[in-house]
């Protein structure tokens, strides 16, 4: 039994150290790592992801300024097939560049972020809200288009570095398109003036 249980008492010294240390931790979360949940939430890092949401540029008109064009790439690439998109068509049946129905079933979604990676328009991004429990298991856990649309200002608030990089890239692309449009306009310009 060792020499009169020497190893046993070494173990008890470790436990005693933890017991006393837990009273004098001072918020460092070394010897007492409890967060009292509803009152005190653990600060999440910027990159943390839970479920997807759709980005719209202006909060006042979400449906009009959303970036999604219903290309259905995310629906095809999603591994558990949790996205359902129906493109919007106007009265004559011509497809608008907008989804009419965009459903994500969050009881199926496995938060893998592949939809974000493949989207060519930076329209769908990952949210970090984890308090999503509902009182039902099936229809209540499907999120529809109005709930999914959140503004770019919200996106900048939750993920500053990623959102500012996306904004810079979109602005650069827009400026390049504008610059390419200006020489075309200038090329057409003198002709009408001449006549």
């Amino acid at each position, binding site marked *: 039994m*060792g020499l009169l249980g020497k190893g046993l008492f070494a*173990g008890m010294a470790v436990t005693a150290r933890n017991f006393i240390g837990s009273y004098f931790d001072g918020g460092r979360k070394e010897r007492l790592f409890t967060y009292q949940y509803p009152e005190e939430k653990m600060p999440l890092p910027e990159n943390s992801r839970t479920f997807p949401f759709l980005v719209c540029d202006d909060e006042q008109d979400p449906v009009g300024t959303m970036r999604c064009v219903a290309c259905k790439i995310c629906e095809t690439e999603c591994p558990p097939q949790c996205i359902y998109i129906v493109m919007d068509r106007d009265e004559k049946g011509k497809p608008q560049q907008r989804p009419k129905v965009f459903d994500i079933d969050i009881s199926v979604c496995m938060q893998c972020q592949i939809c974000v990676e493949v989207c060519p328009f930076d329209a769908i991004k990952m949210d970090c809200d984890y308090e999503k429990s509902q009182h039902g298991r099936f229809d209540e856990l499907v999120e529809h288009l109005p709930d999914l649309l959140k503004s770019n200002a919200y996106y900048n608030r939750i993920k500053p570095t990623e959102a500012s990089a996306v904004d810079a890239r979109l602005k650069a692309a827009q400026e390049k398109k504008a610059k390419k449009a200006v020489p075309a306009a200038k090329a057409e310009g003198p002709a009408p003036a001449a006549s």
Partner: protein
Amino acid sequence: MIQPLTEEQRFQLVPGPEGLIETQQLAVSIGPQHPSTHGVFRMDCVLDGEVVVKLRPVMGYLHRNHEQLAEKMAWLGSMPYTDRLDYLNSMANNWAYALAVEKLAGIKVPERAEYIRVIMAELTRLLNHASVIGFMLQDLGAWGTPLLYAFREREKILDLFECVSGSRMMCNYFRFGGLRVDMDEKALGMARDVVAKFPKFLDEFEQLLTENEVVLARCQKVGILPKELAINGSITGPMARASGVEYDVRKVDKYGVYGRFDFRVPVGAVGDVYDRYMIRVLEMREAIKILQQALRDIPAGPHVAPEVKVRNFKVPEGDGYARTESPKGELGFYLVSDKTGKQPYRYHVRPPSFINLTTLEDMCLGHKVADVVIILGSVDIVLGEVDR
């Protein structure tokens, strides 16, 4: 219709030794709902008093059709599913799959990505071994104390994973040709912090447990796995090294940049439960050495090979097998790609826990019921991997 097995077929009572007293054997199923079988796993045991006379493991309670699902999805789409194979070490599984696809498609991975992959894999090894030792001691009966100390350290590493990849456990971080996003300076600082504090935790853990007489008495000479049986049964990982087999895939294959690091591989002599526990503790110390070298030498550069596409990724025709040293053993992926190349034609996982479990009966015969639980804990199984 398949008939379920009858009681006699399930248990197969073995005739006991002749003696003065007529005894009866007890057929017990240490069943799928049990606090210590590490998941839904069943063992049909026949006991003679307290001694185990026959033991038959029954797996398949967590089968989720992983391999068939992968044959219907694109190559990248099954990367999140590999996270859920060995759900405690998601980065290790990701690496094995990425390695297999890169081997088939002939993609070269940039240096910085290789170093970050090694850092992530060794951090995963640290957290796996700490958790396994914690769980084994929980099975021994120390009510939660070593487990919660191990989880305290695990939380720091999981916070680092969340900072880098977005999710604590199901990371989905590796891509073919590199990683999804780069690791910035803040994350590298967190990693250095974790590595600096870990040896102190290991010393405290060892003081609590290694010299403890109760642990010594319960774990030594229990569940011995002889070296020949380990080699014949394809046992890999810390379990084989504890039995004396000097085999570590990192040293044999030198995949990634493991050839550049200076680390040793501990090997045991007896192959009992105590050896497996000590080999894991020594491997944690070696992993810290590798981490210190990797964090010191990490170069700048791109984090993913630029020619790899995310959508419409095609792999040329052929088949290949790639393996890594995951914390539980040798994790291998065998992929077959056909002419179209858009999804795997055949996808097979070689799970270390499943192969290591086949020797459970040989290790448990002659020991008591209490030992069966500890031996199962030292094999280190995760049911997600065993049943896929």
